[in-house]
């Protein structure tokens, strides 16, 4: 570790990409790392997408500006393993087995559960069926069209689980949205920060860390996760195999997976995201308990979609979504 820190300091710079400062506390994570190690971080394209991250690796290959590390959705990580260098952080054993590549090409970092955010003017919502009531006219929105946006697909899947479906079938969720549409409660507008602030989409299905009052910028906003519909989704870290700053890249990963009070895992937690080592940290008592207690409450076993389940859901949506909601 001492040798790694020395080598990284000698490189002096780290290139990261697509890390919005307000997202999952990345602003604080970047400044803490810079202060701690005296390494400058070049943050490119903060609002970029996962696909743009891997595109940058390919297009800027060989340039000193190429991204050293990426933080991508799992589907993108799985499709691009040939671009990554294997690495196992020192806390490798604290990452649950299903959430990392056995050879260390990618490893999930933080994530959250699909949740329903809503304006407090509706009182307290405890079940999805309440959303079918007349006071929710035009109120309920997804974050995009589920045949193209991953967060929206997971929103429908979460409704499916809440309605008694399984991860293997999204049909119950599509039915729920058909009922919602019939009741006149489904808003066709994509939920964004702007639409929430304008009050046009007062009920939103999205990942819990993107649905926090602090993230959406609205104070009268609450979040709940329906009972037995705990659907998780995680991002993954990976190192560019031709990283211009290989030591800094590895030090960054060590920092992100550090369980220290000012390490990446607790900093993500403070941003409302659930760090991948949370179960181990809860056992080892290294977790920031105050931040953990602020996360939306969860009842039931978390479900994570496999690649096959998520493809199956997409195929079902391709033929049934338009029919159900138009």
């Amino acid at each position: 570790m001492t040798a790694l820190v020395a080598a990284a300091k000698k490189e002096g710079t780290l290139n990261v990409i697509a890390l919005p400062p307000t997202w999952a506390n990345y602003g604080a994570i970047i400044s803490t790392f810079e202060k701690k190690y005296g390494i400058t971080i070049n943050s490119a394209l903060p609002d970029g997408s996962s696909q743009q991250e891997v595109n940058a690796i390919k297009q800027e290959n060989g340039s000193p500006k190429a991204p050293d590390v990426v933080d991508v959705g799992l589907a993108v990580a799985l499709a691009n393993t040939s671009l990554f260098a294997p690495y196992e952080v020192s806390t490798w054993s604290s990452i649950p087995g299903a959430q990392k590549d056995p050879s260390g090409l990618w490893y999930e970092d933080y994530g959250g559960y699909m949740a329903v955010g809503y304006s407090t003017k509706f009182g307290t919502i405890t079940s999805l069926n309440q959303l079918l009531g007349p006071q929710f006219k035009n109120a309920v929105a997804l974050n995009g069209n589920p045949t193209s946006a991953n967060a929206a697909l997971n929103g429908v899947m979460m409704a499916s689980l809440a309605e008694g479906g399984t991860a293997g079938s999204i049909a119950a969720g599509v039915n729920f949205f058909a009922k919602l549409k019939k009741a006149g409660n489904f808003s066709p507008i994509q939920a964004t920060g702007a639409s929430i602030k304008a009050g046009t989409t007062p009920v939103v299905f999205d990942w819990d860390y993107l649905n926090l009052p602090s993230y959406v910028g609205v104070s009268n906003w609450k979040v709940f996760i329906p009972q037995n519909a705990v659907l998780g989704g995680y991002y993954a870290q990976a190192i560019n195999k031709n990283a211009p700053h290989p030591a800094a890249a590895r030090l960054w990963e060590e920092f992100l997976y550090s369980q220290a009070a000012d390490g990446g895992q607790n900093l993500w937690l403070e941003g409302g995201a659930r760090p991948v080592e949370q179960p181990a940290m809860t056992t080892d008592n290294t977790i920031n308990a105050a931040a953990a207690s602020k996360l939306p409450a969860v009842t039931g076993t978390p479900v994570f979609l496999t690649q096959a389940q998520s493809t199956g859901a997409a195929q079902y949506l391709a033929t049934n979504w338009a029919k159900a909601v138009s």
Partner: protein
Amino acid sequence: MPFFGYVGLFLLLPTGIVVWDAFKNPTGHFTLSGLTALGNSQVRGFFIGSFKLSLVSALVGAVFGAILAYAVASGNPDGVIRRLYLAASGVLAQFGGVTLAFAFLALIGPAPTGLLFHASWYYSFPWGITVIYAYFQIPLMVLVFLPAIDGLKVQWREASDSLGSSAWQYWRYVGGPLLLPAFLGALLLLFANALSAFATIQAWEDQIPYTVAQQIYTSTSSEVGLANINYADALALGMVVLVAIVMTGYALLQRRAARWLR
């Protein structure tokens, strides 16, 4: 010759690529599966949706735009009102897409007051979205139709009046037939304008696919594994065919309407 070069580069070449790719699968082999997909009931629904929306919004835009253009034309040709209308129409005809959708979103907002209909009505298809499309369709109609109305000579109206015809007879036998070819041409332009409009409906009805344009977007950008560029090409080919059919119908009508002008 430069004209053909231009048309070839910017119209024929892209169309050719779309048609060519519509017959391929993602691995590059020849297939008819993209085309057979055009036959399934869901895709047919998207085409019917696009057709309905384009037709309804073109008709609404054409009728109201024509009336407005007539009102403008009967005013002082150098007056302030006319210049104001033309300038406003020029700006508003280009006012579409996300800006327009967001303007409506802000207008309707959480608690709509003083609106003609309940907010949910504006999400309905095709009528709600037609009202939004009218914001660029009507100004466009004013712009393209005004020259035709200006072409009506005052002397014709005077001649018709002095021969004892009523206002109805003037429009039925003189003004109407003169304007009909221009009106139909403008209607077609508005139809094509609505058919290819994408950003407005995408921002307004993002989560519910009604039209072919929305479906092409999904099949080029899906991050859940449904992206299929050749299927998108097949849909685009379908739109080309749809426009071709409408153009043919227009040409036949135009020939009939303009028969006596020859």
